[in-house]
Each structure stands twice: as structure tokens, then as C-alpha cells.
């Protein structure tokens, strides 16, 4: 006969063994999911850039599957804007990068499922160059007055909350959209002239911007 303490120890060992098995099952499941690197581009921005004269933008993205349905995500691109109004004329150009992560909300049915609904966060930064500005202050009583401001180089920083969907159209070929809520962090730097368009962010004269991207991507997968 075993004493009561010995039974308790056996029971505890049993629980521990079950826990270890659960952890092993979990890790096996993650291994089955494999690794994935997705590279793609926004397919709407080139269309808009072709038809629009005021703003142009191009964007590429990549994400890498870590574990637990969490992906490291990065986007980068460039763009420009041109304002040619009667009382305001200037051009800007910028490059940008966004870094953050995505989390797929729904658990996958099997390890080869790579689509899903995603939530994510990003930190964005842009290097903006503004050409000289020509302005006219319209005053019907005293008469118009005008002037020019010199070129300027400055940076923009913003925070994003994202939500989107990605589906697999064919093996390795992914399509998806992502809605972005963007919040400018250094709006004081935009006060003397907020660019009409900052590629990667949107309208420079708004402290918060909602935007959407449509991506077509290709996935490279390999085993863990």
C-alpha cells in the first residue's frame, strides 16, 4: 500500500504529464503550420497614380509568420503630390516605411490555411521634401497679396490600427484588403504647410486618416 502522500505525488505527476503532453501537442501544431514569407504590392495605387495628377503613390508590403497566428509586418513605398491652385502652388515628394504586426483572429482549420481576418498595429515614418511654395492671400477689400516660401525637408510619424482580410486565390497567390486608421504623432511639424498627400499616410492636413489598401501577394513557404 502506498501512503496518501505518495498518491498525491502520483496524481500531481499525472497532471504534469498531461500538461507536458498539451504543450507538446501545441508545439507540434505550430511546427505543422510551417513558415511563410509574403511579399506583395498595393494594386490600386498604380491605377490611381496613372489617372490622378495631384497625387501619386506606390506601396509594397511583406509579412513573416512568427507563431501563434502573429505576423511581423512591414510596408514601404514612395509618392508625390502637386498642388496647382490659383492661390497656392507647391510640390512634395516622400518615402515611407511602416513596421508592426498582424494577428489572425480566427484559428486555422488546418496547418495549410493561411487566409483569415487580421488585426494589426503599425508605426509609420515618412521623409518628406517640399519644394518652394507660391501663395496668394485673396482679399477683396484691401487687394490681394502674395509671396513665396522656401523648400523644406521634414519627417512625419504616425500610429496605425489596422483590420483586414486575406484569402488564398491559388496556391501561394494571396489577395486581401486592409482598412487603416492612422493618427499623426507630430502634427506641429505640419502647421506651416501640411502636404496635400503624404504617401503611406494620406492627407497631410488631417490629424487622423482612414485609408484602405488592396494587396496582391505571393507567399513563400517552407517547413520549420
Amino acid at each position, binding site marked *: 500500500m502506498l501512503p496518501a502522500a505518495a498518491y498525491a505525488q502520483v496524481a500531481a505527476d499525472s497532471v504534469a504529464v498531461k500538461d507536458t503532453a498539451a504543450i507538446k501537442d501545441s508545439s507540434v501544431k505550430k511546427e505543422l503550420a510551417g513558415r511563410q514569407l509574403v511579399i506583395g504590392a498595393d494594386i490600386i495605387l498604380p491605377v490611381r497614380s496613372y489617372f490622378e495628377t495631384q497625387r501619386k503613390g506606390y506601396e509594397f508590403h511583406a509579412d513573416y509568420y512568427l507563431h501563434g497566428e502573429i505576423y511581423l509586418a512591414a510596408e514601404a513605398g514612395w509618392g508625390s503630390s502637386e498642388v496647382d*491652385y490659383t492661390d497656392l502652388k507647391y510640390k512634395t515628394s516622400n518615402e515611407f516605411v511602416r513596421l508592426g504586426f498582424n494577428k489572425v483572429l480566427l484559428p486555422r482549420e488546418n496547418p495549410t490555411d493561411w*487566409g483569415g481576418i487580421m488585426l494589426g498595429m503599425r508605426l509609420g515614418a515618412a521623409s518628406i521634401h517640399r519644394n518652394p511654395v507660391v*501663395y496668394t*492671400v485673396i482679399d477683396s*477689400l*484691401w487687394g490681394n*497679396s502674395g509671396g513665396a516660401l522656401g523648400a523644406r525637408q521634414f519627417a512625419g510619424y504616425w500610429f496605425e490600427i489596422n483590420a483586414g*482580410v486575406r*484569402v488564398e486565390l491559388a496556391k501561394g497567390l494571396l489577395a486581401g484588403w486592409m482598412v487603416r486608421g492612422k493618427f499623426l504623432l507630430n502634427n506641429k511639424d505640419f502647421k506651416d504647410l501640411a502636404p496635400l498627400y503624404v504617401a503611406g499616410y494620406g492627407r497631410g*492636413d488631417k490629424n487622423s486618416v482612414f485609408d484602405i489598401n488592396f494587396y496582391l501577394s505571393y507567399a513563400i513557404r517552407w517547413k520549420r
Partner: protein
Amino acid sequence: MISRRNKDNKIVSLHGLTGFVVLCLYFAIASCTQERQPCLTPKTASLNLVCVHYPADSTPSATSMKDTALPKALFGALTANGAQYVYYKNISSNFTLSLSPDADSCSWVVSPDSLAHPLDTLNFYYQRKLQFLSNACGYTYFYSLSAVHTTHNNIDSVLITNPSVTNDANTKQLKIFIHPN
């Protein structure tokens, strides 16, 4: 359902694909409008003033001061192209002027009643500050009042209550004290 697999284990995602294409087309077409956004804020800085007086039988103090409604006020901006007059047909004690963006001073003439003469001249002295409003509205000038001089036909004195002249129409910058009689 975003995607599913058929019996050949091939991925089928017709709902997702259709929605994706429709959304792409919609945003591609919708985004091609290039019209300038409407300007929804005042583009001209307004100098808002109120006319007041002390009753002849009272000692001047903050509590004895009363608004003076001018019966048919006349204001005239002395511009490079001559005087530009504004007639107020209705009785009022609150008026709005603008300052010249071309210089650091400007003058207005004022009469409390369009029939009363002679006019008083208000000379405004200020610093200009170029102000970006938005891409929709462009630039304008805001001002910082440093002094206001006046003649004394109908006006007793003037008081700058707020030197900052912006496009905020609700802030009063000037009190004009009219002779009580």
C-alpha cells in the same frame, strides 16, 4: 466563409474574390476625383469690436459701461483704391472690420450715424503673421494689434481687449467708447 477546399483539395474563395474585385473597382473609380475640397473656415481674419459708452451721470467703471447701439453706422476702409464704405442699415453695437494684409497699418473712418458728420478716423497698427489654414483654404494673415489711434469727434477712446486678430469670429478685440451725448 472566406475560403474552402473542394473535393480535389483545391482552395475555392469565390465570395472573397468577388468582393475583392468589386471593392477594387469601386475605390479605383472613386479615388480619381481631383476637385479641391471646399473651404469651410473663414479665410479672412476679422477684427470684432463693440461700441460702448458711460452714461453721462455715472462715474466711469467696468459696471457702469453700457453697449451703445449705433443707429445707422458707417465704416469706411481707406484703401489704395479709395474709401470702401460699409453701411449698416440696422441698429447695432457689434461690428466687424478687416486689416490690410499689404501693410503694418491701415485706417478706417467711422460714423455712428450715417447722417452725422464729421467722421472719426481709426488708425490700426499691428504685426502680420502668415497663417496656413488648409489646402482647401490656402494662406491668410493673422495679426497682433499693437496700437489703435482715433480722432475724437464722436469717439471718446478705444481699448484693445484682445490683441490677437484671427479668423475666430467670436472673439472681440476692441471696445470703442462713444461720447455719452
